[in-house]
């Protein structure tokens, strides 16, 4: 299987300021990849390097095997790009924006017209097709931006925060759409600040922080490795410290003195409960909590 994206040791400076610190990252064809990181981490910079909007000082980028600099025509034809900010042609209507975009990518007039109409319908923009894009609402502009990225039928779709400022309803619709595109074989590279979104959609996740990739894993593994399973047990008595008989379980005593916390140690749960009963204690409540990607993400980016 070929790789849709292959980034090797990418180094990018803005003047003297280093934005990307030799990052490497591979996205196989057909994958739904999530690219996360706090504001200013370098997500947009990475994407701009791939699409040809930023020059980079070191490393290489390959798109389906083509070099993003020397074979820029091939790589650009293969990429669909949905930028973070609106960058529409100020002289065109919604329909013309799609039609001309298709043209720039070499799609014949007739086919361009057909695709523009089809995408306008698919994105609920058909009744606004004659409008100057400035007269569209924020959500409509977002939709038009995504439609524009699809009009030349790219093999990899790169989205830079496509769901920023989008209402819940539209966000859910976009999730369905992205999932569908991915199922049809399109590789998807998604940047988002909504961790829930990444958790739901992405098969693999890369986390970038201050220009370094600090995690690169399948979503499942990321949650499994770094996620915690916390079990809180409330007891019917207060303790100044953990009773000696329970210390071997590696538990924590909460400040209130009658709740104990067990982290990750699911295997010992049964033994622990037995030991508790053996002490003549009673369990008054039990609560379990699993950390989600959001906590993991916060933990990762805070430590550094």
């Amino acid at each position, binding site marked *: 299987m070929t790789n849709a994206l292959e980034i090797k040791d990418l180094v990018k400076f803005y003047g003297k300021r280093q934005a990307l610190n030799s990052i490497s990252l591979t996205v196989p064809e057909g994958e739904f990849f999530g690219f996360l990181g706090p504001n200013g981490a370098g997500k947009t910079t990475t994407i701009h390097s791939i699409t040809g909007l930023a020059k980079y000082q070191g490393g290489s980028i390959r798109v389906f095997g083509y070099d993003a600099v020397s074979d820029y025509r091939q790589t650009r034809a293969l990429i669909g*790009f949905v930028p973070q900010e609106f960058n529409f042609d100020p*002289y*065109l209507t919604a329909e013309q924006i799609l039609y001309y975009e298709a043209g720039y990518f070499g799609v014949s007039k007739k086919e361009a017209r057909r695709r523009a109409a089809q995408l306008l319908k698919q994105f609920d923009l058909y009744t606004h097709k004659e409008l100057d894009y400035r007269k569209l609402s924020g959500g409509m502009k977002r939709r038009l931006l995504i439609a524009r990225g699809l009009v030349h039928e790219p093999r990899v779709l790169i989205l830079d925060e496509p769901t920023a400022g989008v209402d819940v309803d539209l966000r859910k619709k976009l999730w369905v759409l992205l999932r569908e595109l991915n199922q049809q074989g399109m590789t998807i590279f998604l940047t988002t600040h909504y961790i829930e979104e990444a958790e739901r959609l992405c098969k693999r996740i890369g986390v970038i922080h201050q220009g370094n990739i600090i995690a690169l894993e399948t979503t499942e593994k990321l949650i499994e490795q770094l996620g915690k399973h916390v079990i809180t047990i409330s007891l019917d008595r207060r303790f100044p410290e953990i009773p000696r008989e329970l210390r071997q379980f590696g538990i924590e005593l909460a400040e209130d003195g009658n709740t104990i916390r067990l982290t990750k140690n699911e295997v010992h749960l049964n033994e622990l409960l037995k030991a508790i009963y053996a002490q003549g204690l009673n369990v008054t409540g039990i609560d379990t909590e699993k950390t989600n990607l959001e906590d993991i993400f916060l933990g990762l980016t805070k430590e550094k």
Partner: protein
Amino acid sequence: MNQFIGFRALLSREILRFTSVFKQTLFPPIISSFLFISIFGYFIGRNLTMAENTPYLTFLVPGLVMMYLIESSYQNTSTSLFIARWSGYIQELLVTPLSYVEMVLAMLLGSMVRSVVVSAGVFAVSLFFERTAIMHPWVVLYFMFFVSLTFSSVGLLAGLIAEEWEHISILTTFIMTPFIYFGGVFHSAQNIPHLFQVLMQFNPIFYMVNGMRYGMIGVSDVDFKISMIVVLVFFSVLFSVVVWMFSQGYKLKK
């Protein structure tokens, strides 16, 4: 993938751009050329003759045709590219598979369409005052073609370099307009003091105006073949610079 389709799409977008704002792009030169021709050519210049006994009106028309050709070319590309940068639309173009040469050529040709339409319009206005035949049509076409490409390239440079809208109008006011006016649009080199005659020869627009004048009425202050070479040299240099800047991503890429 068909590269020609992409090029044609950008070319037609460029044409659509200036036609969609035709009140700003096509009307003003037609109206002001009408004023120039009627006031200077017809009212004032009626009893005036220039070199080789040419009536002033006849002498003025080719100058005006060239002036508006130059102005429209410069304005078209500088505005188009500046707005493309300012609105972010240029980024849409830069991620398409269009090559830099194709982008530049499509913008230049789009601009040429506008300036040819404008200069034909200026000529049409002059026909209300005087019917003139064009003496050397091929020479006229040559100058229209290359001068418009040359100043469209200048416009692209301005559109690239400008950081604010003001920079474009500053260039127009302080460089373009003086060079055009001193380039012999309204007068012959033979009517002015010697010092200015010498200075004029360093003004590339002098050759362009005179080339056009030769093509239209057969009168020129300088051999039209020299004018042809000057224009070609200017165009080649500017075109190469512009394509090079695009390929380097100067002010286009971060």
